[in-house]
């Protein structure tokens, strides 16, 4: 290996860390400012236009906190009942009235590793469509909650899991659940980009190939591979060398490849576990853009340490602390006018 290569990689890593720290600092500064800081509001993008649920953010914007009675009527196009009911007690499905609108829900979810309980009975609601951000300080159980949704938690032999996770109304922990089907319908993107040591093409094709009975040829797979690479915003960068080793891509490209790979399984929900924490700001921005785009056609549940990022991309937010879900609801509500003192302290950057 060329020693210059190593040096370059080290330099890059150092730079990346600097950037990350700068990003964290700016996030902290932002969070520490006035919660009604207009820049923070501006940073929250409107929810994707193609979201199947009636636009919840638009409906809630004029309503001050606690003024549930003043919630405007839902848009005429929506046949569902009032999607917003803010005055309900904490940790209740405060933002979605109709359970049919929930694509995912945790009910009394308890997870323990070697008897050490990480989640103490969590009730989470993930409305269909849009981005749900799980936020909270380190060790609060966000990632465990996320990994329990597609049943990766149980890969650890010491894990014990109680309660329910409802996906489209059906408990994924019920007996007879087809795990492989569940994990195709609920895809996952990890913290560290983890492409397989194969070519770019094979990485994407892997998701499609093995679920087909017959091994499809490259020509048959190409349209699908090209499609998901396009949706992941990577096509233009890799279309000329699909046979390159995926590990030769940059970190940000690798993460977009992982998203493409996940999309290839045709999921309804994508779980993301701090997908940008190993990336530089520019790659982070691209992934965030992509997340918002994808949330137009599917549901994204993202764990993030980065409050600024959550504010930028989330439509809904849930705040966890020490294994309890403290508050959840419309993102703007949670971030700017939270009901709970602990949430207020957290979003104000007082800890976490």
């Amino acid at each position: 290996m060329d020693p210059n290569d190593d040096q370059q990689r080290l330099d890059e890593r150092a730079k990346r860390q600097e950037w990350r720290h700068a990003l964290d600092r700016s996030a902290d500064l932002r969070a520490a400012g006035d919660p009604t800081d207009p820049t923070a509001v501006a940073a929250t993008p409107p929810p994707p236009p193609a979201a199947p649920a009636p636009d919840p953010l638009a409906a809630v914007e004029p309503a001050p906190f606690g003024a549930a009675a003043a919630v405007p009527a839902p848009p005429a196009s929506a046949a569902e009942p009032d999607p917003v009911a803010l005055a309900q007690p904490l940790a209740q499905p405060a933002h979605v009235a109709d359970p049919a609108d929930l694509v995912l829900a945790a009910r009394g979810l308890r997870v323990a590793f070697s008897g050490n309980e990480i989640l103490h009975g969590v009730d989470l609601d993930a409305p269909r469509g849009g981005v749900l951000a799980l936020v909270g300080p380190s060790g609060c159980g966000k990632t465990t909650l996320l990994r329990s949704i597609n049943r990766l938690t149980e890969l650890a032999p010491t894990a014990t899991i109680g309660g329910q996770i409802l996906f489209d109304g059906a408990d994924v922990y019920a007996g007879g659940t087809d795990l492989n089907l569940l994990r195709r319908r609920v895809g996952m993107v990890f913290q560290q980009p983890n492409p397989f040591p194969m070519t770019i093409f094979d990485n994407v094709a892997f998701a499609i190939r093995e679920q087909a009975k017959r091994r499809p040829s490259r020509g048959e797979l190409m349209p699908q591979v090209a499609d998901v690479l396009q949706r992941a915003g990577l096509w233009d960068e890799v279309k000329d060398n699909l046979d390159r080793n995926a590990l030769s891509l940059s970190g940000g490209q690798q993460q977009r490849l992982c998203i493409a790979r996940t999309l290839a399984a045709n999921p309804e929900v994508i779980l993301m576990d701090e997908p940008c924490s190993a990336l530089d700001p520019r790659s982070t921005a691209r992934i965030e853009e992509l997340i918002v785009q994808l949330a137009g056609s599917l549901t994204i549940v993202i764990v993030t340490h980065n409050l600024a990022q959550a504010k930028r991309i989330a439509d809904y937010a849930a705040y966890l602390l020490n294994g309890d879900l403290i508050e959840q609801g419309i993102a703007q509500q949670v971030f700017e006018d939270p009901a709970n003192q602990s949430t207020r302290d957290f979003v104000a950057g007082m800890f976490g």
Partner: protein
Amino acid sequence: MPVRLSDRIGVGIAYVAGTILIVAVAVIMLWLIVQGLGTISWDFLTGEPAPGTLEQGVSGGILPAIVGTFLVVAFGMAVAFPLGLGVAIFLTEYRQPAWLAKGTDTAIDLIFGVPSIVFALFGLAIFSQGWLSFISNPVGDTGMATAQSFFCSSLMMALIGLPPVVRSSQAAILGVPDQQREAAYALGKGRLTTIRRIVVPGARPGIATGIVLGVGRIAGDTAIVWILLGGAVLQAPPDGWYLPWNLMDFLRSEGSTLTTYIFFSSPAGEGNSPGPAYGAAFVLMVVILIVNIALIRLSRRKIGKR
């Protein structure tokens, strides 16, 4: 250079140890080359052993021995490799039930530690039973089998080739990052698909190392060959042994490998012709070296184009 005295001493010891090793290997190789190269000729490599070896220079060739080594290695590894890889996958990816995993672990260690002549003796006891005479030959009408054939020796060779395959593969499989397994599971892949498409390909170089070590052990073993293949090097192989339709007969018959040839023709054996012994030793070394390099080369995957 380190500054502290204790560090200097440590580095010094490391240098000396490394140098001693290199010198020892170089001396052995040079000795073999000097002594063996003179014997090696086309006739030596392609001829059959001559009836009398008491006089140096008329001991004939080593072709049957070379073929014998290849056969024993190939058949031994044909059993040891799939079995060893399977055991390694069981020990790393499944480990259930725990008692079976523990037992397997101990068994592998035992096989690794026991000298091959013990297995050879055990094999003799088993394969000499009459009903197993189809893998060797019956002994007259005694109801016993000779227990000396390529089949018999290969089966026992598989046993001594197994532990290196298991241990190397195990280490390599453990080295495949869990993130890749998780990535495959998260794409809705089952355990078997994940093992087949992600874990084993990722462990390929380590698995190849295991095969190389196993091949070395089998090709270098003398005790099993002597007891289960026959010590009569100079007994000429059956007429037309190289013809394909005589293959079964040949595999059921006695034979020799390079190691037994070396033993037999060395001054310690009956032959007392060190020249051919060195020549055969040199050939054995080259054969193993070629197999090593070929396997390591093959196992290195080059992913895609640059």
